[in-house]
């Protein structure tokens, strides 16, 4: 009888590297870091669903989707906590990104580099990105279990509090800021800079009302070494595929339409965003999300110094008067929707074509300099330096030819509360549809009293469903609570 060589049973995978072959060279480290950025292209994060959480859940947007459950998750009607598109996919993709960061932070320190500075930069990128994902996790779920080590299939993290998560974000971003360059060159442009880390760190402090720490971080842009690198550009250049990574950009997600394929970690997977396809008006896109009309009303309340309509309205929203006011159609169509409806125009490609699709290449300016200026003004105001806060707001207003704040709104004066109230609207008009509103509402405490909720509900009746101390955060996915004995309860009231 013949006998078989048992070595036949040792079959290597002919398709790809094994984990044990990887994490050996500088190139491995670089590729490992790059793979973290790819998470921006996955639907739970910045290619699709996170906008439903940040923009539509806030009072700027809402959903009339016929997909009832999808719409319910933008109006605080959370029934099934395992609903994929509303909750689980973003939760999962956040951990996927964190896993990639943790791989770099675990393996790269042991790799020998010719240039230690290069190594430090790669580690700093991973720290920035980990801090970035935890920042949004803190905004959405607050008590988001922290994972900083590589997980085996049986590992079960302990419960974490919001304070724990903020502490981690602060550490990661502070460390990242120390090693990230002031500017990148060539094909590295688009990676986080020192400014990106400090801006996000500033936001992190502000969410916790750590105003002094926030000011120190943001000083980088105002008085620090970052000053020469940032400026305001033509307003519309912040939302188009042209003039990306310009001087206003502090941190920008790089989208591309090079691969018109499916999402995920597959060959030639898409690097595009689907936001515009999901937010485009009915009959053009899925129209799963649209803007609240109060934004249009607010824009029209104040004219430019030349008596024109605020030009930001033109680039922010599709609304019934768009063609009459500015001569622009909606993806080539005249208004055919209801008279009180509006849609988000930022990042849409109507300026160059009559449809959108899943392969939109417009970079998302997650943090831009105008946002930083307004944040800085807010910090100064909270530190009782209201008078010194004015120039930063005025700089943002001046770009679109609006009169200085003190001229347009003379009643504010140095009243801290009135200044804050006006600043809220300044931020809405400058930044609506740019996914900052949910963090703003939380930071301002507008959702922490029933009276505050009622005021928000006047702009967005979905907030009539908002239950105090419950809907301020999302429920953790039910499966995660059920399967992790360390998580004894879900978030409060869920």
């Amino acid at each position: 009888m013949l006998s078989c060589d048992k070595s036949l049973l040792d079959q290597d995978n002919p398709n790809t590297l094994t984990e044990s072959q990887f994490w050996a060279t500088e190139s491995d480290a670089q590729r490992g870091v790059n793979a973290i950025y790819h998470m921006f292209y996955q639907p739970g994060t910045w290619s699709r669903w996170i906008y439903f959480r940040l923009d539509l859940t806030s009072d700027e947007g809402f959903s009339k989707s016929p997909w009832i459950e999808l719409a319910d998750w933008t109006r605080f009607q959370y029934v099934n906590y395992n609903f994929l598109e509303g909750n689980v996919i973003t939760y999962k993709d956040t951990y996927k990104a964190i896993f990639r960061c943790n791989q770099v932070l675990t393996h790269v320190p042991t790799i020998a580099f010719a240039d230690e500075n290069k190594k430090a930069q790669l580690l700093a990128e991973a720290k920035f990105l980990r801090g970035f994902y935890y920042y949004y996790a803190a905004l959405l779920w607050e008590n988001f279990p922290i994972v900083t080590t590589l997980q085996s299939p049986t590992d079960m993290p302990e419960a974490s509090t919001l304070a724990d998560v903020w502490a981690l974000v602060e550490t990661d971003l502070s460390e990242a800021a120390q090693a990230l360059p002031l500017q990148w060159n060539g094909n590295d442009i688009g990676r986080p800079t020192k400014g990106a880390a400090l801006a996000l760190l500033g936001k992190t402090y502000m969410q916790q009302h750590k105003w002094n720490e926030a000011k120190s971080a943001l000083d980088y842009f105002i008085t620090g070494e970052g000053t020469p690198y940032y400026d305001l550009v033509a307003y519309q250049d912040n939302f188009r595929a042209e003039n990306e990574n310009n001087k206003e950009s502090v941190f920008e997600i790089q989208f591309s339409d090079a691969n018109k394929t499916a999402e995920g970690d597959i060959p030639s997977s898409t690097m595009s965003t689907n936001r515009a396809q999901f937010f485009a008006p009915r009959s053009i896109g899925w129209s799963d999300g649209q803007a609240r009309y109060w934004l249009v009303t607010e824009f029209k309340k104040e004219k430019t110094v030349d008596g024109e309509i605020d030009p930001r309205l033109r680039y922010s929203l599709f609304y019934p008067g768009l063609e009459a006011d500015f001569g622009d159609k909606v993806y080539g169509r005249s208004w055919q929707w209801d008279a009180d409806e509006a849609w988000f125009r930022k990042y849409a490609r109507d300026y160059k074509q009559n449809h959108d699709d899943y392969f939109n290449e417009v970079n998302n300016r997650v943090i831009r300099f105008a946002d930083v200026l307004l944040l800085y003004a807010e910090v100064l105001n909270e530190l009782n330096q209201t008078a010194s806060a004015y120039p930063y707001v005025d700089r943002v207003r001046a770009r679109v030819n609006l009169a200085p704040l003190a001229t347009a709104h003379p009643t504010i004066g140095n009243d801290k509360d009135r200044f804050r109230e006006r600043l809220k609207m300044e931020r809405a008009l400058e930044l609506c549809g740019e996914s900052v509103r949910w963090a703003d509402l939380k930071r301002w405490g507008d959702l922490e009293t029933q009276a505050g909720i009622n005021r928000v509900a006047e702009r967005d009746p979905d907030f009539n469903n908002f239950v105090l101390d419950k809907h301020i955060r999302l429920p953790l996915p039910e499966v995660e609570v059920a399967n992790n004995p360390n998580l004894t309860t879900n978030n409060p009231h869920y």
Partner: protein
Amino acid sequence: MNKIIIVFIVCMHVFALHAQITGTVWDKDGPLKGVAVAVKGSSTATQSDQDGHFRIAADPAAVPVLVFSHIGYLTQSVTVSGTQPLQVILQVANTDLDEVVVVGYGTQRKQDLTGAVSVVKVADVQKRQATTVAESLQGLATGIRVRGGGRPGSEAQIQIRGLKNFSGTPPLYVVDGLITTANRDFNPSDIESIQILKDASAAAIYGSRAANGVIIITTKRGQQGPAQIEVSAKSTLQTTPRYNLAKTEEFARLNYMAYDNANVPRQDLDMTVDTDWQDAAFRTGKVQEYSASFSGGGEGGNYFISGGYFDNKGAVISTDFNRFNFRVNTVSKKGIFTIGENLAISNAKADEMSGNPYIDVLRLLPTIPVYNPDNPGGYGYGDERRARTFGSNPVAIADLDDRTNANLRIRGNLFSELQLLPSLKYRFNLGYETSRDHHTYLRKAGSWTLNQPLDPSQYHENRAESSTVLVENTLSFEKEFNAHRLNVLAGQSYQRDRYAQMWGTKRNMLENPNGGYYTVLDQGNEPQTGGFANRTDIISYFGRFEYNYADKYLVNGIIRTDGASRFGNNYKFGTFPSISGAWRISQEDFFQASWINDLKVRANYGTLGSSNIGPYDYIPVVNTFPTIAMGPGQVILPGATQVKLANHDLRWETLIQQNYGFDAAFLNNRINVSAEYFISKTKDVLLQYPLLLSTGNDGGNPFTNGATLSNRGMELSVTYQENTKPFQYSVTANIKKLRNRVVDLGYGQNRTFSGNTVTEKGQPIGMWYVLETDGIFQNIEEINSYQNAEGRVIQPNAQPGDIRFKDHNGDGTITNADKTIVGDAWADYEMGLNMNASYKQFSFSMDWFGSFGATVFNGPRSVMDMFSDNTNYRADIQPWTPENPNTDVPRAYYASTINARGDTDRWLEDGSFVRLKYIGVSYRLPSSLLDKIYFSEAQVTLSGQNLLTFTKYTGLDPEFNNSNIFQKGHDFGVFPNLRTVSLGVQFRF
């Protein structure tokens, strides 16, 4: 059916008594040699000689009983009461018990079986209209659960004795000794025999891959004698069951009601259109099947050549399947040397279905036209103002989204045998199978649903190649001495499977001015390509020991050791032993019940393995696909990272099974009874148990040896047959009862959720876990008085006509915590009833199948009845209104899930059913007529399948199939079993 032909004794001459009994044994054609003749109650035995004569010592004064036995003939006892010499006529007796059964690397007489083996009558399989073998097996053997596909070219799902693991793995198929799959490429007309090895002792010889049972198929061989030609043709019509849906007028009334109730302005429905989407999407399917075979043989060998053609135009538009088959089986013998081969070549092509028309026809409104020249592509679909639905136009999808799958398969084996000694045989078997697969996908420009992105045309093509090489060496020893019969087998096997695929995609395909596109990858732009390869190796050593003492005591032991490349270094090998025994009580001297022809009790215990995981699952790999665009030029930079976690220590899944059974034949074999009781436990079940999301794992959950499952069940099969009269008939009833239970789940978890089901330790897999409804609120008082113990109004926002839910946790509000277990999708028992009858030239047969006690989820009804999103509605549905409160349908309410939640018991239904799976009548031309046309046999058969169904289930088909085992009972709009009527003719000459 079993034809027991009577044995009768003809007393010829009268002679004086003496101590030697003599006689002759015949069958209907003449003297029979080699018949075992034994004196009952003594060890005296002899055999008949060349001329059928025998001579045996016995004292006639004691009125001895002689037992005549011969393989293929009915064993008969003859009481010698004086007249000699005896002339005994044995006739071919195809009783179950005397059949020879293929059991893997050899055969056994069915009466010698110690394990649970079902033999399916090939004639029963072949009379059915089925694309695959599996599809035709339902109801023909106990313990086999088959759910058909229905779509042209689709595979049926088959499960032997319940669920052994979570992967729903099909059983192992062994075709002519080649381990393979009996997929759609196989021509059922070529089958000679099918046996199903159901328990551990029967299947253990296939060790590691046998845990889900083994289906052994042998194909036909030529018979000694002049050439025979067999030709058959079958033509079939197929129709799909349909929903009863509202027409435009009724639809509009209900749609307005749902909008009005929700205070939403009515949409501007186009009342001039009344489309029947079922007429648009469904049609009468047609199947044509032709086969011809040519066979014959002589002393030195035999041959069998067959060819077949099968074509199925589907019952859904733009679906089609066709197949060509060719087979050559030959054997030649010279002295101690035998060599043979089986070779089958098939070419199959399917035009696959896109989308799900069984949901699309519900979601489209009757007010939408099939065609609309204003839409890109020219098809009608939803409209924001006039017909708000996101349903897909099935006619558009069928045209614009075109998929085909084709493959050429060559499957065969070459074997040689060397009879080294009369009792010792060496066999070498070399098997090879390859399939060349070709898949195309053309996405034409155009839309089929509202708000669809405008994608350009796209063409995708992949070509793949799979191959299996099997090398086996076996040595078998067979010896009889006195009443002992010993059969020993030892063998070794090596199998290598490879698969490789490459693919390419282009967009913006070149349009052909004559219509359509140039579908070659030279055309178009934005190219993408890819490919991958897999290989697995299995090395095995096995042995079997069979011992039979006087046909009374049977012992069977099997051991198999398998090594698989799929497992980690320390876990590659697994050893799977089994032992079984049987006692044929009826052979005992003390057994005097003459009305019992045969009685055997059996018991066995064995282990089997399973390795149903990917080829490299134990190795964590780095995913090199994430690319990023960076910099002003958006240059594409490579990324690489681990995406999916892996468990290094994956090992064999092990099934431990006990089986107890008996077989009995009574009243001249008129009644046959076979019963089995079995307990099985699967340990280290390989499953992709869901990891915590916090692990960051993606790309599917990694396999782990996670759970323990148990199955307990019984099977009983009773046959009554009457073959002695011109009107012959037989009736077989079988019943199966099976209960699965989860003993342990992965990673120490207690329960896991999937869809609307929960799987808990100690309970069956996939129990329904939903909110319980409790009728409809009729008025405000009922709503206000519906309070919990603390007096909190439970559904304060409800209105009359809304559903009342049970507040199981008593917290005064309806949340997910109120979900409760409401039954499961597993049948309490399943029954089959097969009836056959013949009279002169006519024969008739009928197969019924029944399944009782399953609770199933009617997905299509949860779409039609929801009213929250626009769909078409069930005709005659009566939503609650103040004027019409006596209904179980809550008030229609648009754009709110208030009465439309999918996770409630409202959609659960009793899935019990009884179905006439098959009914057929055949007419065989009389030989007087046949002689004139030189045919030796000619037969016409008219048959139908699934013609009658009795059920309370309101969906299209209670016999649906969901491949997700946790959601087995969820009918998501599954392609139903079709009703068919076939006419077939068969000739032999």
